[in-house]
């Protein structure tokens, strides 16, 4: 099946969604996604961030689709033409969606541990406006303790359901879900039952905002002060491939490796994530790279830096050859010592 996104064509398998096709092309035209997660079945279709304009339905039915489509749940048709970033309507819709997502999201990025790797922060930086038009009180919840390892900030939640699906699909008996409806909907565990599942920590990685964060990393550092390294260890429960966030020789936190769309490559177990904070437990492979303009790259050098050798030393000390000729006044000859110093320098 041939699909054209922003003028770039690609052949894809039947059943691929527009978002997946866009990610195969890559670049600017990939729609942002807050709820869709390629590793979780049934995710997507909730946040409406990935709206795109379908200007031509297919070869068989060339009419454009009247409304903007959520690209993460719309399958491609043969000959479909899609406008993502080139469409004025799409950019306008993303701006509005961002504004809606931010209505109830608290402005506590300075406090939040997710800041710097937050999808909502990136989205609002790209598509949002700096001001809010919302004057009503924001939705707030009583803080709730859901265990020793995971910190829940319900105020920050955008109800993407990613964590619920993680709990559904990765762990054998789900202990948390969404309670209540509409404006009162919230992520919670049943009667404050602690999440003690072996893979429950993946909810932290999956969460696009700072609603679920690592309690062992709480307020320890900001993500951009840590140096991320790829590391692995032998684990009988999971693949053991992780990213270590180091500050000096100290492991501040352990996360799964995330790709360019901030989706984990492989899920890791709680033992790897929370219990191994000693560098001796890990085999460090090397620094982890991030997209060029990520704040995490701040002060990080991901390649070997060779010592700089200044080649101009001779010129600095002695000046250029042609200048030296000009300065040396022929009528005032230099003395023997002076001449030696002038030629060879006295350093």
């Amino acid at each position, binding site marked *: 099946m041939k699909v054209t996104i922003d003028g770039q064509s690609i052949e894809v398998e039947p059943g691929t969604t527009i978002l997946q096709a866009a990610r195969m092309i890559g670049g600017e035209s990939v729609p942002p996604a807050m709820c869709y997660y390629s590793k979780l079945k049934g995710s997507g279709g909730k946040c409406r961030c990935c709206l795109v304009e379908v200007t031509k339905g297919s070869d068989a039915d060339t009419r454009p689709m009247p409304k903007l489509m959520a690209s993460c749940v719309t399958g491609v048709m043969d000959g479909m033409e899609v406008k993502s970033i080139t469409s004025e309507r799409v950019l306008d819709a993303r701006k509005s969606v961002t504004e809606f997502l931010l209505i109830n999201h608290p402005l*506590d990025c*300075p*406090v939040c541990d997710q800041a710097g790797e937050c999808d909502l922060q990136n989205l609002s930086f790209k598509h949002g406006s700096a001001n809010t038009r919302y004057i009503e009180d924001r939705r707030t919840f009583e803080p709730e303790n859901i265990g020793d390892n995971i910190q829940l900030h319900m105020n920050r939640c955008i109800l993407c359901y990613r964590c619920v699906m993680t709990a559904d699909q990765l762990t054998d008996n789900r202990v948390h879900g969404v309670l209540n409806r509409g404006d009162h909907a919230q992520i919670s565990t049943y009667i404050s039952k602690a999440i003690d599942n072996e893979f429950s920590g993946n909810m932290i990685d999956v969460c696009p905002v700072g609603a679920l964060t690592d309690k062992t990393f*709480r*307020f320890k550092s900001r993500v*951009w*002060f840590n140096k991320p390294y790829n590391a692995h260890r032998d684990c009988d429960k999971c693949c053991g491939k992780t990213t270590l966030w180091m500050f000096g020789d100290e492991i501040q936190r352990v996360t799964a490796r995330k790709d360019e769309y901030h989706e984990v490559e492989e899920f890791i177990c709680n033992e790897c994530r929370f219990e191994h904070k000693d560098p001796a437990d890990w085999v460090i492979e090397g620094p982890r790279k991030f997209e060029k303009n990520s704040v995490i790259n701040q002060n990080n050098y991901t390649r070997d830096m060779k010592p700089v050798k200044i080649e101009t030393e001779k010129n600095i000390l002695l000046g250029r050859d042609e200048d030296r000729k000009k300065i040396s006044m022929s009528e005032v000859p230099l003395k023997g010592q002076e001449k030696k110093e002038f030629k060879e320098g006295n350093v």
Partner: protein
Amino acid sequence: MAIETISLSGKKKEVSNKKMNFWESLYLIAIFKGLMITIKHLFKRKVTIKYPEQTRSLSPVYRGQHTLMRDDEGRERCTACGLCALSCPAEAITMKAAERKPEEKHLYREEKYAEIYEINMLRCIFCGLCEEACPKQAIYLTKSRTMVKAQTDREDFIYGKDKLVMPLDMAIKNTQNQAAN
């Protein structure tokens, strides 16, 4: 006029090596002229002041020692978000965050606060980028109205929270002034 003879700065003087006459070669007139200039300056207003007993008034945009501000209720504004340290081109700022306990609500404004906040004044170039980056309006270089004093020990230039946080009485005075206005 030729370019060589034009004085663009107005200070160009023609020099000549003409021979001095007898009076000139005694230098008495020249010495007297010089003394007159010295005596004239004795009766002029002094341009120096007795620092540090006296200080000059600072311009409103002057950038001196940093202050970590308190809010109207005397709580520290800083939440240790790290943006000042991130923006600092000289990497002079370091901090360590801590979580506020329920009984410390009157001390710190937000859930998180800076347990340790240090500025190395030897590194600081007083560019004011930290002030610009601060999302909580917590750090200011214009509020302390003091300059960083000279020290003899390098260690003394690392200013901790004891020197940086705005004194409580100053915060109280500010709040009273605001209430009066």
